[in-house]
């Protein structure tokens, strides 16, 4: 498979995530769209790690694993981020009885 199809697929997923984050008002769905964007970037990183594999892996085998471990750490950070973010959403629901992100306007004052 050529690399361009992976690039286009990741761009499509990322843009769908952006459209969702811009148009929806439910805080949970906005959060899910952010997860979708993170996953599209992960997919592209793995594809790039396979792109020049034959050249790099011959010279330095340890270098070729870098991108995939980077994806692993992105997943780790995303898991931590989701736990704190969902706690914030639960807190917001407890205070306002809604998950509409427009209620966060009140943080201004």
């Amino acid at each position: 498979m050529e690399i361009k199809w992976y690039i286009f697929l990741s761009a499509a997923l990322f843009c769908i995530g952006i459209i969702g984050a811009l148009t929806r008002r439910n805080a949970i769905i906005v959060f899910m769209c952010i997860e979708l964007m993170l996953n599209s970037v992960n997919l592209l990183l793995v594809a790039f790690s396979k792109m020049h594999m034959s050249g790099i892996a011959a010279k330095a085998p340890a270098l070729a694993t870098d991108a995939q471990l980077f994806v692993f750490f992105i997943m780790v950070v995303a898991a931590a981020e989701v736990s704190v973010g969902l706690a914030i959403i639960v807190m917001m629901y407890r205070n306002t009885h809604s998950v509409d992100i427009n209620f966060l306007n009140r943080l201004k004052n």
Partner: protein
Amino acid sequence: MEVTQILFWFLSVLAVGAAIGVVLSKSPIYSVLWLIVVFFSISGHYILMNAQFLAIVNIIVYAGAIMVLFLFVIMLMNLNADAEPAKNKYLKFAGVIAGMCLMIVLVAALAESSDIKVSLARGSDVGLIKNLGRSLFTTYVIPFEISSILFLSAMVGAVVIGKKDEQKQVNP
């Protein structure tokens, strides 16, 4: 057309269609279920690229843990489908246009690249658990340990944020 190409197109159409389902579905429950479909198709892509460790981690962490957390929170809050008020139609339209413009710019900019036709190397064993584990516990052992501290602080933070405010209830 080879089998891998057919699988690639099938998984790509599945991923994009399910991603559109995440954005368009009214109820948050259906959004979560569509997002699980997206994660499984991305895991299928990882398997096609011979990155088996990431495929398994993606299923366990994302489809297993994070999505259960989302479902748990949604069911805890008992959200109705019509709880979301309609957003301004022009704002929605502007969001869709902005996303489409980003897509066009990305594709148009990257399609001119000279490396765009490079094919992915097949059959390399970099993505296997053995090689990744060796690299993770030698070169990247310090970030690995730091991420455990990150998890501990995230857990403490989630508990502190999610706890009921007792002082507020005692003297309102």
